[in-house]
């Protein structure tokens, strides 16, 4: 429990330093985050699409 408290305290100390970065630095930090979100979305779409039965499958039952 004290480890968690210590971790949270360290995080609380660290967060203001992130806010103190310059605006261009923060935008640069956001760029890779944006790429990660896009990749996650793409992979989610691929998984969702493969999990969904195709129109032919749902219409005619299981493919042979």
């Amino acid at each position, binding site marked *: 429990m004290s480890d968690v408290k210590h971790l949270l305290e360290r995080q609380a100390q660290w*967060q203001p330093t*992130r*806010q103190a*970065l310059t*605006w*261009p630095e*923060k*935008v640069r*930090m*956001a*760029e890779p*985050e*944006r*790429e990660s*979100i*896009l990749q996650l979305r793409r992979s989610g779409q691929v998984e969702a699409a493969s999990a969904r039965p195709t129109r032919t499958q749902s219409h005619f039952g299981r493919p042979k």
Partner: protein
Amino acid sequence: MVKAVAHLLNALQSSGLVQGYALFGPMAQMRYTEAVATLDADVLVAVAQPDRLDALSDIYAFCAARGYLPEGEAVRVGAWPVQFVPAFSTLTQEAMELAETADFEGVPLRVVGAAHLAVIALSVGRAKDFARVLALLESGSVTRPEIEQLAARHGLAAAWERFEGRFPLE
């Protein structure tokens, strides 16, 4: 790459196609808070006839002539899709007019101030918009009385009251 966006927006204003512009949304928020994840850059623009369906077509043509092509509802500038939003209310018009000119790596870039960012977010009212208001408050760039006053001036007193009810001052 946002530097390229700044150059493009300044050129757009110099051309006279827009009477004004200002960055808003998460990209603008980052000026005041920690970095946040966002997929695009949102820009308020003052166009002559904002109600016209093709109000943004001249802007798109201007961007395309400079090699920045449309992508969905945005224009791609380097890594960033830039979404142009005509100033659609007295709140967004005021936000644009009172925007600050920031320095983005040596290039001037108009950006909506913290109080107007908060009240625009309040007016939209999704969970992520409330998170934006909270982040701006936490950063100290705007105060609750400032938001309350601005919200009241733009007919959003009830929205602010609801927000205060959900997220009271600790």
